[in-house]
């Protein structure tokens, strides 16, 4: 009897380890996470507008139907990216996600404080290579460090009323994420 109780306890303890291991491993093995869902429709380093979610079809679950959205699936292995997002009339935000869909940075139109949100996205190693004096002269450039080489940028513009949806869609469609072909220059 004691033996079975001990085995049960041992099994439960081992079960706890199995539980923790599966929870930690799951994000690495998930085949239907947001990044995987976007891979077939979003080419690398390009802004792709996503269709407005409807009951029949939505790229991802839990999308906000009041927003026009676009994504840029990025790969920084060949150099930093430059992101420009025109601000829509209502509310515009840019959120950055890692390869495993973890948000590491977000900015909205008011925080950016301009008509156009302009950002440079680079890894920590690429940031170190930016000359220091350049960084000072280019203080108006916002630099975002990505913790991973690959990830997602979600650009979202709100349509507070259905009639404002076309304007929001135009704003996200006019966004660009481009690889920096030349070293960033300071603006005078």
């Amino acid at each position, binding site marked *: 009897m004691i*033996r*079975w109780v001990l*085995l*049960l306890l*041992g*099994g*439960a*303890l*081992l*079960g*706890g*380890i*199995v*539980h923790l*291991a*599966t*929870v*930690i491993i*799951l*994000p690495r093995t*998930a085949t*239907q*996470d*947001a990044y*995987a869902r976007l891979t077939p429709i979003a080419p690398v380093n390009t802004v792709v507008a996503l269709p407005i*979610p*409807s*009951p*029949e079809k*939505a790229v*991802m*679950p*839990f*999308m*906000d*139907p*009041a927003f026009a959205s676009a994504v840029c699936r990025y790969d920084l292995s060949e150099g930093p990216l430059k992101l420009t997002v025109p601000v829509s009339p*209502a*509310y515009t*935000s840019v*959120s*950055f*996600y*890692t390869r*495993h*869909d*973890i*948000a*590491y940075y*977000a*900015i*909205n139109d*008011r925080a950016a404080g301009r008509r156009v949100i302009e950002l440079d996205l680079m890894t920590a190693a690429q940031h170190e290579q930016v000359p220091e004096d350049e960084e000072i002269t280019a203080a108006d450039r916002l630099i975002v460090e990505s913790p991973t080489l690959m990830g*997602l940028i*979600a650009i*979202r513009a*709100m*349509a*507070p*009323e259905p009639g404002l949806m076309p304007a929001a869609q135009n704003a996200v469609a006019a966004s660009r994420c481009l690889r920096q072909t030349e070293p960033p220059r300071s603006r005078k």
Partner: protein
Amino acid sequence: MRLLTGTLFALAVATFVGLGMTYFALTRGAAFGALPIDSWTAWPKTGTVEADPYARASIARTGRLPVALGDGVSFTVQADDNGKPLDGRCEVVLAGITPAARYWTLTLYNPNGDLIANSINRYGFTSEEIVRRADGNFEIVAAPRANPGNWLPTGGIERYQLVLRLYDTAVGVSTKAGREVPMPAVSTRSCP
């Protein structure tokens, strides 16, 4: 033989307990750092790099992109203030005000996170669309049939959830439930 059956028994228990707990945790959407306010719950940390392993697993399993904390906070309600699960065949009333935010949206989803088809293609409200009373309070009625005022169609489905997203708000990781974060009261008015 005894050793073999014993080992197999312990391993079977481990598999059952381990996978069972994982399944349970993920279907319930468990994560640390929950911010419960009345019937509403938010997980502000899930929208940051400090998301715990449970939040990460849940994000990967559902396939959603969480609302980043610098963007906003999303509150979910699955049961009314009396603990009754939200039923699309009933009339559910949301009444009150929301915490301060530049904009907010309220959206109705089925348990999988899909929108519900309805005759007027309305899936939620934004803070700009709501008809308010003179004191700023509002009342939203989620019901299967048309209602005067702010009607949110449920399509008559058995279970649904409401997600209130606050955009550009001070509500976040350091928020404590209290007077400065008033959430709308959720009550079931009538059920067929």
